[in-house]
């Protein structure tokens, strides 16, 4: 595989993890526009552990995921007070605060960025991405997921039948943050250079975009969405300067024709039963 292709596949894997982090939180009916912040935290923590303390990458990633998930839970509690678009705006603010924190964090380079990480192989990135995707696919068949969807559909009703909606919502933030942090750690060890600008609003929006484009009701949707967001601009290269406009147009067209995203359960069922309806 050429370096060019390998780079694209690595991008898809990292974006897939970021998208899944949004997907987990969205499954409980909360929209996060700040997951790049969790990604940034994971990225800096993992890099610090591997470069300064010479940890191997895998424990560093796990430590990064744990620390981000603690912060995710801390964010999740005040987030309980907010709903809908106001929650989205608050998480946007959180993301921007994390970015600007690292901009001021001169121990790790500040605005100059941080480097010294070892490059990681494409296979390693995809082992994580596929592992988390598999974990989520299993989770989707569990009772826990049903509880998450119940909170998504009607929080009051879910509370009335005795579900712990607080734990579900805050837990989703913690889990989502951990997945975003793994994406960040892998990002840092793929590009071997990070700077705060890597973890801005555009990155958070990319995550949300991948989930919504691919299909926000099935985990595999994030995979399709991530692949499209990385590959479409490449396929549109023949349009030269106009490829971003074409990308924007395609995005609007997809949303207009399939607002639930490209993949959804009926379509998946159709594909797996070779055309016969389930």
């Amino acid at each position: 595989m050429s370096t060019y292709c390998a780079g694209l596949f690595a991008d898809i894997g990292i974006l897939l993890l970021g998208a899944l982090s949004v997907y987990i939180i969205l499954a409980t009916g909360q929209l996060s526009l700040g997951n790049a912040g969790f990604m940034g935290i994971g990225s800096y923590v993992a890099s610090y552990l591997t470069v300064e303390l010479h940890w191997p990458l895998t424990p560093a990633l796990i430590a990064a995921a744990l620390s981000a998930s603690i912060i995710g839970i801390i964010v999740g509690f005040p987030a309980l007070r907010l709903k809908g678009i106001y929650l989205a705006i608050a998480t946007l603010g959180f993301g921007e605060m994390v970015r600007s924190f690292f901009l001021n964090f001169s121990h790790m380079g500040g605005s100059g960025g941080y480097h010294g990480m070892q490059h990681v192989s494409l296979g390693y990135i995809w082992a994580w991405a596929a592992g988390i995707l598999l974990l989520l696919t299993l989770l989707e068949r569990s009772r826990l997921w049903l509880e998450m969807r119940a909170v998504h559909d009607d929080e009051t009703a879910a509370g009335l039948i005795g579900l712990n909606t607080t734990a579900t919502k805050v837990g989703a933030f913690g889990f989502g943050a951990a997945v975003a942090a793994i994406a960040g750690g892998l990002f840092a060890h793929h590009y071997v250079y990070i700077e705060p600008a890597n973890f801005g609003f555009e990155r958070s929006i990319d995550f949300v975009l991948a989930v919504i484009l691919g299909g926000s009701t099935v985990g595999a949707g994030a995979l399709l969405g991530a692949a499209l967001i990385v590959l479409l601009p490449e396929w549109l290269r023949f349009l030269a300067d106009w490829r971003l406009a074409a990308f924007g147009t395609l995005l609007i067209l997809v949303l207009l024709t399939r607002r639930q995203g490209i993949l959804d359960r009926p379509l998946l069922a159709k594909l797996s039963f070779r055309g016969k309806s389930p």
Partner: protein
Amino acid sequence: MLLQQLVNGLTLGAVYTLIALAFSLVMGILSILNLAVGELFMFGGYVGFAVIAAYLPLPIALLAGMAAAAVVSIVIQKIAYEPLRDAPLVTPMLSTLGCSIILQNVVTNVWGSDPLQLPTELFDTRVSLGPVNIGMMQIVVIGVTIVLVGAVAYLIQKTSAGRALRAVAENRDVARLLGVSANRITLLAFLISGCLAGAAGVLIGLHYAAITPYIGVDIGLKAIAVMVIGGTTRVWGALLAGPLIGIAEVLTIAYGGSQVRDLVVYGLMILILLLRPQGLLGGARSDIGQRV
């Protein structure tokens, strides 16, 4: 020195106020975040810039910027918002994001991605008020903002169209039952929102004497914070919060280093969201958000 900084902060804050209003008109009525506002602002700025560069007078530039942004805003409403009106609110937000990607690409292709400078002779006139040295353009920016905010406040509070707007914001279905055309009101909201964003774009061009295609994201995000701090339902909230943030920003740059300013602005926004979700000046309860 301090007074000078205050004036600079006020000017920047005036621009924030206008963009925050552009966001809040759509958000207050439809509770969607129109992510294209930032790029409408940038687009209006470029149109105004083109008019000024052709040596036409300033008022024409302002009107051209407003008109251009308003037209695009209506197109966005028709294409990206209206068909997705009953979708979960993340969907129209992303379709307006699609529009903003297109707008930014078009502007970069037409005007190039390098910053453009305005002719400097416009900016030489300065007025001295005691120790403070105010550029003519700063007075223009603040003056135009006050006039526009006043006009919007009058429109919303006193006219029948404004009453209809508030009615739809309160309860779309009941308003429709009472004979308000919700579609026309939505269109009106996007129209005013576009006008304000366009005007803000022209004014920021005057403030910095330069414009780049990337100004929309940075200032647009800041304006969302201003909108939240002022409250989404009161016009006057933005008029208070804009200058507040503008001054806080300029002062942190002057005395605390430029890098802390985003921390201050977004930290304040989150605090307001948690402690006083209706914004500084009150207004409707904001916790009645739609489900995502």
